[in-house]
């Protein structure tokens, strides 16, 4: 049943995806509203699916591992909704909706790598690791959306013409705030999540293998993240420079995520 509810949620997110595609060419208040309500509803079903997954496996951490794509999609959606509630803008949806759709699609078609857990893992640390990192990911995604939107808005203001979707973007400083706030909030989560992860690795393998692509990429992502917070804090970097860094961090995050497919360690196969 869990997968069924997830597929219902997927269908509803599809409306959001449609919005994202249409929003590129023209604006539609109605679609905006429909997409928003569909996403609300999608989140409800998504939540049901996650809770059911929890009951099936009977174990929080195991459920989190098995439904990782789905969980991440849900968290990104939640962050998006929080942003909407504060700033009344659906503009990040242009990136958020396709991403969430993709993740949910992967989860709903069971195409994610099957991660098995060895019994020796310290599950409470693993729980913390996954939970924290995922919140960090979600915040990073939003921050990336914001920096892309910032670039678009800045460009349209400089080009001195605004029409279609451009005229509906939030004000430049609002976009900036969205990006900065999500950056600031995501960073501690990401940091703590990585610490928790290294504790898990230590206890499982007795050492941290820095040669492993997953670990390497995660560290790279964290370093870029740190650099972003630092330059922003000290020098107020925004606009083009910040967007470049956000893109690098985002790319690192995507690759680090994809590393699940080929990292030997992160699969937690009891070998």
């Amino acid at each position: 049943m869990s997968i069924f509810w997830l597929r219902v949620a997927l269908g509803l997110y599809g409306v959001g995806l449609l919005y994202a595609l249409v929003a590129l060419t023209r604006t539609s208040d109605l679609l905006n509203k429909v997409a928003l309500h569909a996403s609300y509803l999608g989140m409800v079903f998504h939540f049901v699916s996650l809770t059911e997954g929890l009951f099936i496996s009977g174990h929080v951490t195991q459920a989190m591992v098995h439904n990782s794509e789905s969980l991440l999609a849900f968290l990104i959606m939640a962050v998006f909704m929080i942003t909407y509630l504060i700033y009344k803008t659906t503009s990040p949806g242009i990136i958020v909706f396709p991403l969430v759709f993709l993740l949910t699609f992967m989860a709903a078609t069971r195409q994610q790598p099957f991660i098995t857990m060895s019994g020796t893992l310290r599950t409470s640390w693993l729980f913390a690791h996954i939970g924290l990192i995922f919140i960090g990911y979600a915040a990073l995604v939003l921050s990336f959306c914001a920096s892309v939107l910032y670039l678009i808005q800045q460009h349209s203001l400089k080009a001195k013409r605004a029409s279609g979707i451009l005229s509906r973007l939030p004000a430049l400083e609002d976009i900036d705030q969205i990006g900065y706030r999500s950056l600031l909030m995501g960073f501690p989560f990401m940091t703590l999540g990585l610490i928790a992860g290294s504790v898990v690795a230590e206890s499982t393998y007795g050492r941290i293998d820095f040669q492993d692509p997953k670990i390497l990429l995660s560290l790279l992502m964290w370093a870029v993240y740190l650099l972003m917070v630092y330059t922003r804090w000290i020098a107020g970097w925004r606009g083009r420079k910040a967007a470049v860094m956000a893109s690098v961090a985002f790319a690192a995050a995507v690759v680090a995520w994809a590393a699940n497919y080929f990292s030997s360690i992160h699969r937690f196969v009891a070998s």
Partner: protein
Amino acid sequence: MRFQLIGVNHNTAPVEVRERLAIPESRLPEACKRLTEFPGIDEGMILSTCNRVEILANTKNGSGADLRGFIHNFFQIDGSDLDKHLYEYHEQEAVRHVFRVASSLDSMVVGEPQILGQVKEAYATARAVGSIRAQLDQLVTRAFAVAKRVRTETAVGSSSVSIASVAVDLAKKIFGNLHGKHVFLVGAGKMSELAARHLMAHGCASIFVANRTYDRAVSLAYKFKGQAIHFEDLHNTCDRADIVITSTGAPHAIFRREHGEVFLSRRKNRPMFFIDIAVPRDVDAAMNKLDGIFVYDIDDLQQAVSSHVADRRKEAERAEAIVATEVERFHARLQTLDVVPTIVSLQDHLETIRQAEIDRVRGRLGPLSPDQELAVEALTRGIVNKIMHTPISTLKSAARDPEATTVIDLVRRLFNLQERRTAKSGSGEND
């Protein structure tokens, strides 16, 4: 003919004519009353603004009324020189005109928002004196709904038109909320002061003023309750402002790229907005290349204004399309309100039954004398007419009621009447 409208507006009549026809608010109730007392008029409403005077009426029995006569009579003026300024619309065209006026498509400045409020006031006055009832009420409330639709579905009326308000719009695009933002006014001039005033009205916190002559700066600062800055300190103070309006007579640019770089580093890259109204320009165009600095000169602003106007024209076309579909829809609805087809089909229906019954018993009655024939005819006809009397009079009185459709539906269902309504010419649309 039912709805009828007559009037003058800014296009058809010069102000001398319009002011002669304008009805002051205090006389409006009386005018509405006089209108409904005028022969042939059932309901009426009068809209009188500085740009238009219009009389809308629902005429009795569809015979049409002499609205021109009413105007001549009410204003006590001779018709001949007035008539060429008057426009007159009937039925669907009147409906369309009312929708267009309420949606601000017929306004001097298309999309200006006041007209809807004025129509609402006129409606309230007419309602208060009872000159608006069933059908006109439907028409006017529908017009409000159409106006709302036009407002929400098109951008007519959303764009700003003056340079000062374009400047405010742009500032909002950059800063979002203008509360707590600081403005720097460099040089003086009517347009730059207007822009500054607009920005302050939208919540900007404080204003700095600099001028070549310090005394002028002081007096301007006094006017805006701001702070006067010596011109030599301009570049040292400027980074404190988020929005800079310049309009000096300087022959060379006052703000160059290197200044911008300094401002940005002092401001930790928070964005800055330069509004350059001066000719020749006060701000070097290269400034706009800096990340976080936005420079709009007078041409850019002018272009923004004209693109707004062009946008508006495009949006007005979309609004016209909305009005057209709404007119169709309203017309279709009026037709369903029309009770005549139902009465006719009710009569037809009962007449068919009567004929069929007579034919059925004729064989059993045997040959009848002409007198008997007449008696049977009269008897059956009498019964049918008696039965029909109440439904028909109910239908007729229901036609004046906004809930007529339910009554019509009920009668149709009770008697199992088929849809016989023939589409009237020009509106054969199915929906």
